Structure formats: C-alpha cells, structure tokens
C-alpha cells in the first residue's frame, strides 16, 4: 500500500524529529509504531496522513497517487469531537465535508455508530458521553468514509484500563471486519503486542526505525494471559532496550572523528 523511503523531518526550531525512517506497509496490515515519547511516532503518522511534509526521503503510494480525501481515517489521542454537535452529527462530519447531505448519509452514520456499539446514543452530545464512548464516536467518525488506511495516534492512552482493554478488542474486531490497513501509534509494549501483526520499534530522538517484529498471536478471551503473548512482550521489551541504547547514526552535519 505504502512505502516510506528514508523519511526525515527537522522542525523550524532545529529539532530533528525523524531521520532515515524506512518502512513498508502492506494492504490490510495492522502495524504498531512503538517507542518512547518524543521519538517521532506522531510525526511519522502526520507525514503518512499528508498533514506534514518530509524534509528528506519520500512516501511512495502503491499505484502512484496519494489517497483522496476521506480515504485516510485519523483517530487522535483525544476524541476531538465538536462539543455542540451530537454523536450522529460528529460522525456525519467527514461526509458533510465531502458534500454529502444529512438525509442520504443517515444509513452510513447509523451503521458507523452501530459498528462501535453506540447506535442508541446518536442524539447524545459529547459531554453526555463517557471518555470511552467519546473515543468510540471518534473511531466511528474515522470509519464512516470506509477509509483504506486508518491512522491512530495513541487513541486509548487517556482511558482507564478496563475501557482500554475493551476498545482494543473492539478495534481488532473492526479491523477484521473492514479489512482496512491500520497504523497504530503507542508507547505501550503490551498494547502494541496485543493489537499489531507487526510491531515497528523506534529509537529516541531523532526517531529512526530500529527493528520490526512480526506477530502471529491468535486472539481469544485468554490472549492477555497466554504464554505466547507474554513471550512476545518479552521479545519486544528486549528489542526496545537494545534500541534505546543504540547510538544515533551520524547526521549529515556531523564531522568525522
């Protein structure tokens, strides 16, 4: 679906957020970008979304053309709903921005809300919903356009553990049902191991891709207690420790010693 070819991003204040990040994301993948805070995970996600442009390297989309508006869904760390609109109108927003009228979009809105289990809360305003329900609305909003690629930037980080676990399971169900590609940013090893088919480890700033670990974990009610899951967490933890201690490569401005 997408190839990231040695992407780099330096901000106006001189911070090198990302350096030489190369990655291949296939159609239907569930990729977790895992790394410490400030390692450039969110920057990488914004580059993929087209919300920012790389200074170095390039993004190559299969087929040549970048996705059209609505083909990329984005779920932010906060639900970022319109506080004056009810759940249905929040879900309707991406369709409205693409010129759809409310009446013709009603079945899609209802289906998106049903997908996240909120069909009975269509008329509820964000302040009437719990944190977990607000995030479900945010996910429904991202899915209502049936995106080919779903980008998620630590969407469950602010939620309590019970809600987070349930939403993680629901997200996996949605991913299997919809067959879309998911790139999921997290700083939780447990979350990355539970969700992703491929875990991409990133180094501290400047963010580089240290290694990729494939997962063949099969999901069931006891997955979080399964030895395979524990072993995967251990493998990723060891790899992350190695990535944290690896020295950054010399930058273009570094003088040889």
């Amino acid at each position: 679906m997408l190839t990231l070819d040695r992407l780099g991003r330096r901000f106006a204040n001189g911070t090198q957020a990302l350096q030489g990040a190369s990655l291949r994301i296939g159609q239907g993948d569930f990729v977790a970008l895992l790394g410490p805070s400030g390692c450039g995970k969110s920057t990488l996600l914004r580059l993929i979304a087209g919300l920012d442009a790389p200074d170095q390297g390039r993004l190559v989309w299969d087929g040549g053309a970048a996705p059209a508006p609505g083909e990329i869904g984005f779920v932010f760390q906060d639900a970022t709903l319109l506080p004056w609109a009810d759940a249905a109108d929040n879900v309707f927003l991406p369709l409205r921005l693409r010129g759809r009228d409310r009446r013709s979009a009603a079945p899609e809105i209802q289906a998106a809300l049903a997908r996240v289990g909120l069909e009975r809360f269509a008329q509820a305003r964000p302040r009437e919903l719990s944190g977990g329900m607000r995030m479900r609305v945010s996910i429904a909003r991202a899915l209502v356009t049936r995106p080919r690629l779903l980008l998620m930037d630590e969407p469950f980080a602010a939620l309590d553990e019970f809600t987070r676990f349930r939403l993680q399971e629901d997200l996996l169900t949605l991913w299997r049902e919809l067959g879309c590609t998911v790139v999921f940013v997290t700083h939780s090893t447990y979350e990355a191991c539970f969700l992703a088919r491929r875990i991409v480890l990133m180094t501290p700033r400047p963010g580089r891709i240290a290694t990729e670990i494939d997962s063949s974990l099969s999901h069931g009610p006891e997955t979080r207690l399964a030895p395979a899951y524990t072993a995967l967490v251990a493998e990723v933890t060891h790899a992350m420790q190695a990535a944290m201690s690896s020295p950054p490569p010399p930058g273009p401005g570094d003088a040889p010693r």
Partner: protein
Amino acid sequence: MIRLAPYLFAAFFLVLWEIAVRVSGVPEYLVPGPVAIVGAFRADPLLFLTSLASTLGVTATAIVVSAVLGVVLALVMQASPLARAAFQPWTVVLQVTPIVAIAPLVIVWVGDPFASVVICATIIAFFPVFSATAAGLAAAPADLLDLFRLNGAGRWATLRLLRLPVALPYFLAGLRISGGLALVGAVSAEIVAGSGGVASGLAYRILEAGYRLQVARMFAALALLSASGVAINAALGALAHALLRRRGEA
C-alpha cells in the same frame, strides 16, 4: 437566598442611606436620600425617560456597530496574516486612547450629534468584542483543523463549520463586556457633546442638574444609568445563555 442577596443588600443600603440623611440633617442639595431622588424622578418622568431612550438608542446602535465591525475585522485578520500585522497595533492604539480626548474631534468632523456620539461609543465598545472574537477564531483545536484538512475541507467550510462555532462563546463574552462599555462611551461622548434639547441623553440631564445644584435629579439620572447598565448586561447574558443552551453548552 443567594439569588435574593443582591436585592436584600440594596434594600438594606437604601434604608440605611435614608436614615443617615434624615438623622444627620445634611441638606438635600449636598446628599439627597433615596426618597428625594425618587421624588425628583416623579416630578418629570417623561423628560427622564426620553433622555434614557436617547442614551439607550446610542448604546444599542454602538453595540450593534461594534459587534459587526469587531467580527468583520477579526475575520479579516484571521484570514490574512498581512491584515493582522497591519491592523493589530492600531486596534490597541484605539483601545488605550481616552475617548474624551477623541470625542471633540469626532464631533467637529462628523457634525451630526447622534452619529458623533455613536462613533465615540463604538470606539470604546469595539475592542472587547473584536479581541474576544479574534481569540475565538484562533482557538479551533489543532486536531480538528487537521481532521478538516484530511477530509479536504476548504477555508470557507473550515470557517463555517469549525472556526465560527468555536468562536461563538468568545464573541458572546466579548459582546457582554462591550455592552457595558458602549453605555460608558455613550455617556462620555454625550458629556463632551453637551447637546441640549428634549432628545438629549441622560448625561446631559446630569450636567444640567449639576449646574443648577439639583443633586437629587443628578442621582435620579445616575440611578437610571446604573439600572440600564445592569439591564444591558443581563440582556446580553440571557442572549448568550439562550444561544449556548441550544448547543448544549450553557
């Protein structure tokens, strides 16, 4: 009980004031009691109410003009960094220049008394509604702006569906401050203008009564001004409450 507290305090204060005036024997031309002030109003209610209508007319016009100008300028500055750089310092200059220093010039240049006073009141009332609206237009959450971009929203759609709704509570808060300032501006300009006649405002009644040592009439006009200020504030507060309640935010 808490709702009644301001009224109870006012009643207590007025009774205490009347008792103090009567017991001390201070002459009415120095400090009149509340009873004498009500008597001064009742002696010529039509004149007072006509003056009140004149001042309120100026105030209401200034509120509307400052709201329109404030929103338009805030939109222009939000849309264009060049306009922002050009106008921003001058809006501050307008805010910090005392109206009594500008009013004589405005009166000389404009000529028409009503328009002159409205312009002066607008100059005073403009800044809060403008700065609050500008802040509101800039307060759209970055994530939502990103979401709009991702879905191909243009500037107009972003303004209509995101920036303006986000700015509404800011605008309403600024308008409430501007409402009180419009009254202050109207009274200040009326004092400088000093225009006579039946249709002149309450400020002129205060000046006129002061020249004649009719202090009870001065207080009567002042009481009407204070009541007007409270009413304007309450009306704009009710407007804000009604608009925000429809959005589930009040």
